[in-house]
C-alpha cells in the first residue's frame, strides 16, 4: 500500500527555484545574451577548474556553510512560529565574543581546544543575544521582530565601541579588530591544502553537523515536538501541558546559537577579523535561505548550496559573457519572491481551512494566530 509521495513543500520549493531560473533566462534573452551560455558560465564560475584547483569549490562551499547556519537559525525559530530577523546581530555578537575569548587564550593553546572555545563562546554569545528577545516575547509579549531588529543595532554599536577602544587592528586602523593568526582561528591547514584556499574552515563541518542535529531535534525528540507544537498552535500546546513561553525562549536560544556559529565561521574562519560599521549580510540572507528551504533543515542546506553557487559564480559569469552580475542577484530575488508568494498562499489557504475547522467558534474573529 505504500506509495511514494513527494511532499508538497518540496514541489513548491523546486517550482520556485525553477521559476527563478526561467525568469533569469528571459532577462538574459531580453538583453540579447544566450541564457544557456550564461548559466553555464555561472555554474562554471562556482567550481572553476576543479582538476587544477578546488579553490572555487571551496569558496562556494564555505559561503554555503555560512548561509546554511544563518538559514538554520531562522528556520529553527520559524518552526516555533518566531521570526528571528536578528541573525545578523547574533552573528556579530557571537563572532565578537569568540574573538575576545581567543585574544585571551595563550598562543600555544592546542588547536582542538581553540576550536572548542570558539564554537562554544560563539554559540553562547549568539544565544544570549537572541535569548533576550525570547524572554521579552515570553514575559512581556514584545514582538520578536521588533526586539531582534533593535538588538541588531545594539550589537552593531556595542561591537563598534569595543573594537575601536579595546581591540583595534593597530594604532592607525581602528575600524577593524585585531587580526587573528590562522592558528588561532577555525582555519585548518589540511583543509587549506585540499581546497587550495585559506577561507575554507572548520565551519564547513559545523554546518553539516547542525543540519543533522536540528533535523534530529525537531523530528525525533520530545523537546522538538514540544517546540513544534508551540509553533503550530500555542493554545493546543498549552492544553497539552507545554509551556509556550518556555518554548519561545528555548527556540530563540537555539536560533541564536546557530547564528553565533554562523558568526564564528565568518569572522573567525572566512575572514579573521571583525570589520565594524556593517552588519553581516549573511544574517539577512538567512531569511531567504530559510524561506526557500521551507524551514526544514534539509531544505535549508539545499537552498544554502544553491545561493552559495549563485553568489560565488556570478563574477565569473560577468567576465566570461558580459552579462552583468546583478543578473544572478535577480535570479536569487525572483526565487525569493516565488517562495514568498507560495508561502503566503499556503498560509492563507491554511488560515481559511482553520477558520472552517473552528466552525462553531467562527464568530470570534482573530483568535487563531499563534
Amino acid at each position, binding site marked *: 500500500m505504500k506509495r511514494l509521495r513527494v511532499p508538497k513543500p518540496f514541489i513548491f520549493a523546486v517550482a520556485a527555484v525553477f521559476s527563478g531560473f526561467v525568469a533569469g533566462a528571459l532577462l538574459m534573452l531580453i538583453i540579447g545574451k544566450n541564457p544557456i551560455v550564461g548559466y553555464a558560465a555561472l555554474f562554471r564560475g562556482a567550481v572553476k577548474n576543479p582538476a587544477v584547483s578546488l579553490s572555487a569549490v571551496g569558496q562556494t562551499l564555505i559561503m554555503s556553510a555560512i548561509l546554511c547556519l544563518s538559514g538554520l537559525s531562522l528556520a529553527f525559530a520559524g518552526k516555533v512560529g518566531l521570526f528571528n530577523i536578528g541573525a545578523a546581530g547574533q552573528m556579530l555578537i557571537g563572532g565578537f565574543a569568540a574573538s575576545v575569548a581567543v585574544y585571551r587564550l595563550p598562543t600555544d593553546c592546542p588547536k582542538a581546544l581553540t576550536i572548542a572555545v570558539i564554537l562554544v563562546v560563539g554559540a553562547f554569545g549568539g544565544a544570549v543575544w537572541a535569548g533576550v528577545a525570547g524572554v521579552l516575547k515570553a514575559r512581556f509579549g514584545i514582538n520578536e521582530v521588533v526586539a531582534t531588529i533593535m538588538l541588531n543595532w545594539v550589537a552593531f554599536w556595542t561591537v563598534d565601541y569595543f573594537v575601536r577602544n579595546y581591540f583595534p587592528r593597530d594604532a592607525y586602523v581602528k575600524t577593524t579588530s585585531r587580526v587573528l593568526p590562522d592558528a588561532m582561528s577555525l582555519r585548518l591547514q589540511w583543509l587549506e591544502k585540499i581546497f587550495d584556499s585559506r577561507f575554507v574552515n572548520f565551519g564547513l563541518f559545523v554546518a553539516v553537523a547542525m543540519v543533522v542535529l536540528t533535523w534530529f531535534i525537531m523530528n525525533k525528540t520530545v523537546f522538538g515536538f514540544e517546540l513544534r507544537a508551540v509553533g503550530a498552535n500555542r*493554545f493546543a500546546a498549552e492544553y*497539552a501541558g507545554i509551556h509556550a513561553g518556555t518554548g519561545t525562549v528555548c527556540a530563540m536560544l537555539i536560533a541564536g546559537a546557530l547564528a553565533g556559529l554562523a558568526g564564528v565561521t565568518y569572522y573567525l574562519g572566512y575572514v579573521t577579523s571583525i570589520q565594524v560599521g556593517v552588519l553581516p549580510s549573511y544574517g539577512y540572507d538567512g531569511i531567504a535561505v530559510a524561506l526557500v528551504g521551507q524551514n526544514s533543515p534539509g531544505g535549508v542546506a539545499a537552498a544554502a548550496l544553491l545561493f552559495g553557487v549563485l553568489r560565488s559564480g556570478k563574477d565569473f559569469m560577468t567576465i566570461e559573457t558580459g552579462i552583468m552580475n546583478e543578473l544572478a542577484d535577480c535570479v536569487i530575488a525572483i526565487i525569493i519572491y516565488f517562495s514568498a508568494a507560495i508561502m503566503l498562499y499556503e498560509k492563507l489557504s491554511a488560515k481559511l481551512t482553520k477558520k472552517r475547522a473552528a466552525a462553531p467558534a467562527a*464568530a470570534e474573529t482573530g483568535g*487563531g494566530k499563534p
Partner: protein
Amino acid sequence: MPPVIEMRNITKTFPGVAANSNISITLEEGEIHALLGENGAGKTTLMGVLFGLHRPDSGSVYIRGEKRRIAGPPDAAALGIGMVHQHFKLVPAFTVTENIMLGTKRFLLNTKKAAADIAALSARHGLGVDPHAKIEAVSVGMQQRVEILKMLHRNADILIFDEPTAVLTPQETAELMKIMRSLISQGKSIIFITHKLHEIKAVADRCTVLRAGKVSGTVNVADTSAEQMAEMMVGRKVSLNVVKPPPREGQPVFAAQNITVWGARRETAVRQASFEVREGEILGLAGVDGNGQSELAEALAGLRKIHSGSLTLRGKDITRASVKKRMRQGLAHIPEDRGKRGLILDFSLADNLALALYDRPPFSRHGLRDFNQINLYAQKIISDFDVRAASGGQTSARAMSGGNRQKAVVGREMERKPAVLIAVQPTRGLDVGSIEYIHKRLLALREDGCAILLVSLDLDEILELSDRVAVISRGRIAGVLGAAEADKNTVGLMMAGAGKGAEVT
C-alpha cells in the same frame, strides 16, 4: 406545476470519495425540505452543486421545470437561489449593511438607502437586525440572520440553509424555526440541512436522507418517526434513548471549594463555585452559554488561573498545579474549542492522539520519541472510536472532517482511563450516530468509576446523562439537583437566574 428544483441523478466524486452518487431530489414550492445525513454523507456537496460551487460529474438540475447549467454562484443567484453556508461568509470589520452590499457589483454604494432597505427587510421578516452594527460585535445567531438578509436582499426565493442550527443555542434555534416558517408564508421554498431529528420533526414537510453519498429515501415527516429517520441515516437501528444503570454511591474524587475565576477582561466570570464529582457519576453542568461555564472548565483543567478557592483531586490539592501535573493525577479534558485547543491541525492524527502522553514511556524514552508506539496507540484509538481518516494515523488533522476530529479528541481523552473527565460539549455538531456512540462511551467510562463533569448547552443531553445536575447562572452555581428533581422546567428556571438558593453539597 413543476417543482421549484429538481436535481436528477447527480454524481460528484472527489479524488478517492464518491461524495454524491446518483442523487435525485425535488423541492416543491412552499415546502421546507430537510436534508438529513451524518457528517460526510454529501449534503454540503450536493448543495454546492446546486449553488454552482461544484460541477457535477453527471446529472442535471431543473429549476421550475427548465434544465439549467449553474456554473457559479452568480448563476445560482440569478435563478433566485440563496444559501446560508455552514461557515458564514462575512467580513468581521464591516457593518451589516456593508456586508450585504458586498459583491452586489454596483459602482456607487448608497449606504444610507441600503441601510434603510435592509432595516425594512429585517422588520418585514422579524429578524431584528441592526443594519449599522459591526459583524464582529454581534452574536453568532445575529450573524446568521445577516446571511439570511443577504439572500433576501438579493431576491432569492429558494433558500438553502446548511446546518444552520449547529452554531445556535436552543433559544436561537427556536427563533430560527419561526423565521423559516414565516419565510415559507411569504412564498419562499427552503432546503434545510441538519442532522438533528427533532428539528426536522418541528419544521420540515419532507425529508430526504443521505447515507454515504446515496439517497436512502425521501419521506413525509409527519408519517415518519424520528427512530425511522435515524435508522435510514445511520443504516442500523439506533436507540435514541440512553439506558443508564443506576449510579453507584462513590466517593467524591474531584471537589471545588469556593472557586472564583476571572474572565478574559478580568471580570469575575465564576464566583465562589463549589461542587464535587463522585466516583462513577456524571455531574451535569447546565447553563445558558456565556454564564461562566467555559471559564470554569478552563480553570479546572489548569488553563486559567483559579483566583481564589481550592480544587482537589482524590484528596490532593491541585489548585495551583500545572496542566501537566493535573494530567498525571488523572485529569482529562475534552476542550470546548476543538479547533483551537484540542488539536494541532498541522500535525498528524497520530501525533494529536498522543498529545497528552507524548512525553511518557512508552511513547518516548530518554527524550526520544518512539514512533512505533505512537502509531500503535493511535491505531487503537482510531479503530476503537471509529475515527475516519484517509491515511490512518498519518493523516494531517487539517484534512479530517469536523466530526472525525471531534471523535479523535474524545477518543484521546477517554483512552487515557482518567480518574476525572471534564467533557465540554462533547457532542456539539455531531450527528445522531456519533452522539449515540459518545454517550455510550461516557456511560461506560462512568461504569468504570470515572468522575465525569459534563458541561453542555444542550439541556436534553445533560438531563439524559447526568446523575446530578449543577446549574450555573451568571457565574454562580445556582444549585445542584438530584436526577429526580432535575426536570427541564426547574433547571430552565434556575438557568434563567431563579436560584434554588440552597447551598451545595
